[in-house]
């Protein structure tokens, strides 16, 4: 059944038990992102430690897809270098825009590969990317603040 293809167990798990949720101090920059069609929102903080993503914390309201993908994001990027994190960002965005045509690389995206099915539903792609866009924006702000 289609629905299970989209809502993989991994997604539902992250939705029900989100990782890294709750806004934490200290942080370098915060980003607020909203999905204009449904009002889903996320506030996400980034703490960099040199070139390393030391912490990502977030809060928000939204559907299972946006909440789970932000949860997965924190798993993927915390402790990684900014460069590595952006490689994952690019891979995740590419996957989401693939309309189900891409075979995701588990080495890069880990739990993120569960979102391959979501990419078949263009109206939900924005949901999956909400936290990721906040991450990108927050990192840019952190770097901007430091520069």
């Amino acid at each position: 059944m289609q629905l299970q293809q989209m809502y993989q167990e991994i997604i539902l798990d992250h939705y029900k038990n989100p990782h890294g949720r709750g806004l934490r101090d200290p942080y370098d920059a915060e980003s607020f992102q909203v999905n204009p069609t449904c009002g889903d929102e996320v506030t996400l903080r980034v703490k960099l430690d040199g070139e390393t993503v030391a912490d990502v914390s977030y809060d928000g309201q939204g559907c299972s897809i946006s909440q789970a993908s932000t949860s997965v994001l924190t798993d993927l990027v915390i402790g990684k270098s900014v460069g590595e994190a952006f490689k994952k960002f690019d891979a995740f965005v590419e996957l989401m825009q693939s309309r189900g045509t891409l075979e995701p690389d588990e080495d890069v995206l880990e739990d993120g590969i569960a979102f391959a099915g979501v990419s078949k539903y263009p109206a939900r792609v924005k949901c999956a990317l909400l936290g990721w866009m906040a991450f990108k924006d927050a990192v840019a702000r952190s770097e901007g603040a430091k520069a």
Partner: protein
Amino acid sequence: MTTTATPLDVVALREDFPILARTVREGKRLVYLDSGATSQRPTQVLDAERRFLETSNAAVHRGAHQLAEEATDAYESARARIADFIGATPDELVFTKNATEGVNLVAYAMGNAATAGPEAARFLVGPGDEILITEMEHHANLVPWQQLCLRTGATLRWFGVTDEGRLDLSTLDELVTPRTKVIAFTHQSNVLGTVNPVAELVAAARRVGALTVLDACQSVPHSKVDFHALGVDFAVFSGHKMLAPSGIGVLYGRRELLEALPPFLTGGSMIEMVHMAKSTFAPPPQRFEAGVPMTSQAIGLGAAVDYLSAVGMDRVAAHEHLLTEAALAGLGEIRGVRIIGPTSAVDRGGAVSFDIEGVHAHDAGQVLDSLGIAVRVGHHCAWPLHRRLGVQASVRASFYLYNDLDEVTALLDGVREAQRFFGAG
């Protein structure tokens, strides 16, 4: 609302709508409950538009050859029939691309009063003046007024909404004052279904000399509406929500107001004389229809109005009332479902929005979609209203003449399935 009209033969009626025969998501029967966003089109409307394009298409009001004559006749005949449908005269009816343009037209034209002649003085707004709207407005009847205030220095004020989703008129005397220049409000909420007390608001506006602007997007398609009887000054609606093509809407304006209102969009066909340094403008409705208009779309809207009239607007309303009652009753019985808006079908149209505890609207919509049921999810372009009622996003089912009770049942089953799937309820 009486339900004594002969019931609709929905089975026969659905034959007119080719799209309703299609299936979605691996062979599911399409259950289209999103007519509040846009309606489907019957063959009669599609045929009318095509017939026009295959026989009489030409630029209207600009040519002297036979096609141009036929096209102009068809266009103006559509205007006359639509005017008749809404209790207006043809010269009070301006074609716009959608209702949104209609509201913007009034708001911008009022702004233009500052640089127009003395006959436009009644439309002037500036610092100290107030535009009064409601917290249940669609963005289309909200943002244009914010922007008018921004441009002119006027102040935006608004009626609140009660917890039940009715207009809170307890502040009427405080809000409606000689400073009030415009009261803009929706006839029927696209989220709550709430039908607002037009007469009371019109009377209040008249007491202080304010103009009324009615958002009739969700009323004209679903019930008999007579703008002269309602006494509003301006009103807008969209064709695509009433079986007609996209790209066509209507601005109604009382004749004497349209005659005094400065132009908005300018260009061809709306002028009287043009010199390089200065132009003068045609009388309404032409003054407000710059450029080659939505010709075949107006003809399509004319055909839609003919179709709806043949069915009978009282029967349409009665039918939707039945579906709404069934939906409200059914949803009311499901634990964890909260209806956003009045829970009884009194002074209430067929938009039924709800929140399912533990299931985000987007996720619920996805489950329904997988079952072939098309609903709208989100804030439905009424974000402040959602904020007011403490819901971030809701699910909205909206009915039209081609829906039936089986589809209501499908919706209810779908909601339960969504709860089951997400372990809620």
